[in-house]
């Protein structure tokens, strides 16, 4: 069943000339124990979606739609309501783990604080669980690590510590916003393996935000592709990335190195994504799309079923060839 069910989420941020719509009716679903990927270029609204699910939107943001987590409506919660959801319900890890870790507190202190607040554990039980958690995210010598400060860890280890802290209050959903973007590939592989193992062992659901389609493919089972504040395509990751149905998904795949070693196989997408508020009428991808037809310019195409558990927001639905 759906652990998180977002329907038609729209967010407008305050701008110099009135509210600036950033998200235009995003719908997505994360089931219990599922690894879901959210992909898109910077500014496509993927991080803003995460922020709205944790009540972290900047003041003045206008939100409409619905986001139900384990049956509870999130949008419109008060500060106390968010406090209950964050940590124990939904937790988050960020691209830069140093931003999420307090530099002057030991790792153990930051871990136990969550448990004592959310789970009302006593000090000894919390300490024991802190060591367990660090062991679970494969930090070597966890008994010593609880007494260490964040700067004493390398980038990859710090991200593991941040994940341990996020897991401290036993959340059911972890939102990971580009958690491996700043890491080297060998270290990234370790974090991906860790998330996969946590899902298998504890039934944790993960929403993994990334711009790297390779990461999306190797980790997640279902994916969403964002463009200019909309979901343009969704489906099981394998099918989504090997047989895309939306020209943007195909274009992203074409712009990425395939390792075919023939010069000229990187096929760039012309132009750049539209700035918020400057998207053309109709399909937002239409000015950069090689398959655009006059009908694309009338109204933004709705997300329509294109196969088993798949949908795409494209009225043309051209035959797309992909090199993988």
């Amino acid at each position: 069943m759906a652990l998180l069910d977002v329907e038609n989420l729209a967010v407008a941020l305050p701008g110099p000339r009135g509210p600036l719509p950033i998200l235009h009716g995003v719908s997505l679903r994360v089931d219990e124990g599922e690894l879901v990927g959210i992909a898109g270029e910077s500014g496509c609204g993927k991080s803003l979606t995460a922020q709205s699910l944790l009540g972290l939107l900047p003041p003045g943001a206008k939100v409409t739609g619905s986001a139900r987590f384990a049956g509870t409506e999130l949008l419109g919660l008060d500060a106390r309501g968010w406090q209950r959801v964050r940590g124990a319900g939904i937790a988050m890890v960020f691209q830069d783990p140093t931003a999420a870790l307090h530099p002057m507190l030991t790792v153990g202190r930051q871990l136990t604080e969550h448990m004592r607040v959310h789970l009302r554990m006593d000090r000894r039980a919390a300490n024991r669980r802190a060591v367990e958690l660090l062991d679970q995210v494969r930090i070597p010598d966890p008994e010593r690590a609880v007494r260490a400060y964040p700067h004493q860890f390398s980038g990859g280890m710090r991200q593991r510590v941040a994940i341990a802290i996020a897991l401290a209050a036993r959340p059911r959903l972890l939102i990971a916003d580009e958690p491996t973007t700043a890491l080297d590939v060998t270290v990234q592989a370790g974090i991906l393996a860790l998330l996969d193992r946590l899902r298998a062992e504890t039934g944790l659901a993960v929403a993994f935000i990334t711009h790297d389609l390779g990461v999306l493919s190797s980790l997640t089972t279902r994916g969403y592709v964002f463009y200019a504040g909309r979901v343009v395509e969704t489906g099981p990751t394998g099918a989504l990335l090997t047989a895309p149905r939306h020209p943007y998904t195909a274009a992203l795949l074409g712009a990425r190195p395939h390792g075919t070693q023939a010069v000229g196989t990187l096929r760039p997408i012309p132009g750049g994504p539209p700035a918020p508020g400057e998207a053309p009428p109709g399909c937002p991808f239409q000015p950069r799309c090689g398959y655009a037809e006059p009908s694309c310019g009338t109204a933004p195409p709705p997300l329509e079923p294109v196969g088993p558990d798949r949908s795409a927001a494209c009225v043309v639905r051209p035959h797309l060839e992909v090199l993988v």
Partner: protein
Amino acid sequence: MTIIAPDPVTPDPKAVKALARRGWLGRLRGGRGTGRPIWRQPIAVVALTILAGWLVIALLAPVVAPYDPLAQSPDAYAPPSGTHWFGTDSLGRDVFSRVAYGARLSIPLALAIVSLALLLGGLLGLVAGYVGRFVDEALMRLTDLVFAFPQIILAMAVTAAFGPSTRNAVLALVIVSWPVYARVIRSAVLTMRGEDYLSAARLLGVGPLRALRRDVLPNSVGPAIVLATLELGNAVLLLAALSFLGLGPRPPAAEWGSMVALGSQDLSMWWVSVFPGLAILTVVLAFNVLGDTLRDRIDPRYAKGR
């Protein structure tokens, strides 16, 4: 070669071109490409008006002032009235006339002190930051030496050594105030020395002095200019202190600082010090506001796109 469609370019090219053609002085006038023109920013307008007012007063002091600023009269400590707008001081001199004539002395002297200190300190800071190593070390120890003494004590010592006069007071104050500019410029240059755009220019064959002038200096003067406007107030006050001690403009001369000092001996005659004090305050504030506006305008990053 590979053909690539250019990205959509957002800013209005005409406005930008106009902006570039006018240079940074032209940008002060505002118009397309610079956001609001300067006369549409109320606080900048107030500052400009105040400074213009003082300029007029300084130029037309003989016309504006109803009395000779040095003329004494038996009517000492007269409170503000129709005949003496700002009252009279202990020697019966008209405070309004003295404040008006004071503008002729205090503003140019303060400007001279600050610009000379900025020039000297800026130059030494630039050299220290760019050349580095022992030059930097030597110059910075010299600034430490100056910082070690209270400014006024050092200024007194220097003036006393050179002989008391307005010119020597100015020199003394330049000597005690250049280190702040040197420090500010040096740290700005240091952060810039590692900038990629500087490296890129050097790799293209731009000589070090040319790179210093075109890539380093324009990006480091901002904070120094803001500091200089703040220091203008300090310069007025230090000059006042020196003249009060008989080391600057000689006592009978109408100088704002010495007038404040004189009046502060007996605050029940508030008008003697409050009016020259207000004169200092308005000038200093106006320069501060103007300095901020100027910095925002010189830097194209602050100029709003459309």
